[in-house]
């Protein structure tokens, strides 16, 4: 530069224009550095030497001022600050590290102004450096606060995800009393929320020779077949030789990470299984056994492939909780299934086939509740009294468990015994049965219709003119009559009190005359009751279903009515139809 500017004086004092100038340059409360257009230092003040640790001769004419900054700072300057400086003429308060002569880093605030000559052309830059430990601390606090806020946000999201997993798992298990259905749904939840794929085994400790049941799911539907094959091979192998199922009974939920091909090869002799592992992906896993009364009842294996983040301790804890719920569920589902099977057996054994009677055709049906969850106390019966009259009965004991099924057996037995011994009117038989049940301390509340078919003039003899149906109703839905014209009518009569409430209250008999071809239908409330629908509507639908059914066989009549009205009933249904020959 031909016209050397005042700051070109290579002494520590910088500008030498005047002694005043020189004093303020030296006494400025910050390090000052002047540089030329290429960044070469042309002047520094004492403060700048002090904070950088360099001497004047080491700096002036020798160093580029940018060399006082760290490389990272320099990149920041070149990419972000230089454009602003060149366009706006200055930059201020930038946080930098001054690299001192000793190699230490000194936090400092950087301010840079463009220096111009009289014509306005850029001559160089003036740099001010202010030590700024506090400002650094402030930046760090700000950053820490932001990081903490983001961590808290992530923690909240994680906690929510974990709660949702438990909620969904519980909902899946509670969605059905059927073990396989519920476990299937649980597997779907686990792949939707947590795992790449999963296999759930259920084991029946009371039957060790039974095959392990399994359900398998993969998050990627294209790999569902592969994962099912894995489960099948595992179930065949039995646990011992299995990568995940080995180990003693009683071990807790285990986290396995970093499952390498090496480990798989060591643990798996089966070539097909090794190939399948490749296909479904094995990188980390959680193996979660479920126990009930000290016995292992299920094992849930969730797996992620190598492309997915490995399971962590939190996932293990979550799976332990899911496994706990699964154990309780499997145990109660099994007990329920056993109890249900027992009740069904008992009930079926109590319901006998109707007798064959020349004057009447009788058909009976019993269907258990549709979801299999409930055993009913519904019954039907048909027998012949000592005087030759045929008695038919239908009834319903309150309750839906094995106790109800047993109570049904008792009340049915009492009615049958009294009815078979004493040829009384239906109302009389019911009163005696009610008293007997009270006397024998059978605490049963039941609704029932007992009906007697009286045939004063035997068929084929002169004067035969059909039969009389006489019945008494203890709080039961009314019978329906289908005449030979196909018309269906409700035989609506007042009903008496339920059995088991008060044996001394009077009971009444009702009668109707039936001719050949007339059909009477008795049934329990499962056939006419639907949620949010009143009984009258149910009766109307039953009458509609029966209308015109005079010509079909009695069996078909029962089946068509049950098809139309019985499907989806939450209750069990007993039905008895009789037709005069």
């Amino acid at each position, binding site marked *: 530069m031909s016209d050397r500017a005042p700051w070109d004086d290579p002494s520590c004092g910088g500008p030498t224009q005047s002694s005043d100038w020189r004093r303020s340059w030296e006494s400025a409360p910050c390090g000052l550095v002047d540089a030329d257009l290429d960044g070469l230092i042309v002047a520094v003040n004492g403060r700048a030497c002090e904070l950088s640790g360099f001497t004047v001769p080491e700096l002036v004419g020798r160093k580029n001022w940018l060399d006082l900054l760290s490389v990272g700072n320099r990149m*920041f300057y070149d990419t972000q600050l230089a454009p602003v400086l060149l366009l706006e003429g200055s930059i201020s308060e930038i946080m930098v590290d001054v690299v001192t002569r000793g190699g230490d880093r000194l936090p400092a605030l950087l301010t840079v102004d463009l220096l111009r000559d009289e014509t306005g052309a850029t001559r160089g830059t003036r740099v001010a450096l202010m030590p700024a430990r506090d400002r650094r601390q402030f*930046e760090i606090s700000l950053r820490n606060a932001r990081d903490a806020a*983001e961590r808290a946000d992530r923690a909240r999201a994680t906690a929510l995800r974990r709660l949702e997993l438990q909620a969904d798992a519980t909902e899946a298990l509670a969605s059905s009393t059927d073990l396989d259905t519920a476990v299937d749904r649980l597997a779907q939840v686990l792949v939707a929320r947590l795992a790449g794929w999963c296999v759930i085994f259920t084991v029946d400790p009371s039957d060790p020779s039974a095959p392990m049941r399994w359900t398998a799911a993969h998050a990627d539907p294209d790999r569902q077949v592969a994962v099912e094959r894995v489960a099948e091979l595992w179930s065949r192998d039995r646990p011992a030789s299995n990568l995940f199922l080995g180990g003693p009974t009683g071990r807790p939920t285990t986290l396995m990470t970093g499952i390498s091909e090496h480990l798989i090869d060591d643990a798996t002799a089966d070539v097909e299984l090794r190939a399948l592992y490749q296909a479904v992906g094995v990188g980390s896993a959680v193996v979660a056994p479920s126990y009930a009364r000290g016995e292992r009842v299920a094992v849930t294996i969730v797996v992620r492939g190598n492309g997915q983040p490995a399971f962590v301790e939190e996932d293990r804890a979550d799976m332990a909780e899911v496994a706990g719920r699964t154990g309780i569920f499997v145990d109660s589902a099994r007990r329920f299934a056993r109890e249900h099977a027992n009740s069904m057996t008992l009930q079926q054994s109590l319901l006998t086939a109707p007798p064959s009677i020349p004057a009447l055709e009788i058909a009976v049906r019993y269907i258990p509740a549709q979801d299999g969850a409930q055993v009913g106390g519904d019954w039907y019966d048909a027998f012949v009294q000592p005087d030759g009259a045929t008695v038919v009965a239908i009834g319903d004991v309150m309750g839906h468990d094995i106790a109800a099924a047993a109570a049904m057996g008792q009340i049915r037995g009492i009615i049958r015994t009294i009815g078979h011994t004493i040829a009384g009117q239906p109302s009389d038989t019911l009163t005696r049965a009610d008293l007997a049940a009270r006397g024998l301390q059978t605490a049963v509340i039941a609704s029932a219709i007992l009906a007697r078919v009286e045939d004063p003039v035997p068929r084929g003899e002169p004067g035969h003119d059909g039969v009389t149906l006489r019945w008494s109703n203890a709080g039961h839905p009314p019978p329906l009559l289908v005449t030979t014209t196909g018309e269906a009518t409700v035989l609506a009569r007042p009903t008496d009190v339920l059995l088991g409430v008060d044996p001394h209250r009077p009971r009444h008999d009702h009668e109707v005359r039936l001719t050949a071809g007339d059909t009477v239908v008795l049934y329990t409330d499962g056939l006419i009751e639907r949620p949010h629908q009143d009984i009258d509507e149910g009766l109307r639908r039953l009458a509609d279903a029966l209308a015109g059914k005079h010509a079909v066989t009695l069996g078909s009549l029962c089946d068509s009515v049950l098809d139309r009205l019985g499907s989806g009933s939450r209750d069990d249904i007993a039905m008895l139809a009789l037709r005069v020959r």
Partner: protein
Amino acid sequence: MTGGEVVRRNNVHESGQRHGQPIVFAHGYGCDQEMWRHVTPTFESDYRVIVFDHVGFGGSDLGAWDAERYATLQAYAADVVQLVHEMDLVDVVFVGHSVASMIGVLASLTEPDRFANLVLVGPSPRYIDDPRTDYTGGFSAEDIDGLLETLENNQLGWAAAMAPAIMGNADRPELADELQNSFCRTDPRVANTFARATFLSDNRADLARVTTPSLILQCAEDAIAPEAVGRYTHEHLRGSQLVYLKATGHCPNLSAPAEVASAIRSYLGRT
């Protein structure tokens, strides 16, 4: 033709000759289209001059920015290709400063037929040294960490914008207008993501596939893109011309706009 989605998203501005050959100026890391303001006037007499901001910078649609999408240069190149399509540009001269030169390289590889020439101002196909291939980019991985730390340490101006995050809601609302409008002020997060995309990139393999003729402008004493890197780029870019500028530093478009403009003009054959 204009007024479309990309035009708004990338804050596209046009000047010059409506029916002239399109010349697109892309800013590099750290600023926005303002970096070209002393260069573009020279071209307005005979070119259709187009400037824009990368998403996340300047007046671009900050809502369109997404940390995952914009984690690689390919996303910025895809935006350029979209811009070319939406504005239906052909025979394009693409002028990229700094990292935008590699963005131009990637865009031309996607749509070679749309680009007539590439002008690469201070290009670097890889910033980090690679001893395995004897490549000198000028920086170590630690240097890049130093830059990221400097970015982290200079977000004071962003305190207001970060307040919602600190109050416990990390999903920040739209940034305040005054911040959007401040010149070269970039959200530290955007700056951080773009810094990674830029300085951790390795586009050396892409150079050999370029078929578009190109001009490389190399400054003296450019710490970001040293001379050796400019030479490397020239040697690996078929049909490229290397021109040394007198200008020093990394931003000749600001420090020596006349020199940059005349170098481009003489390369394009219209002085």
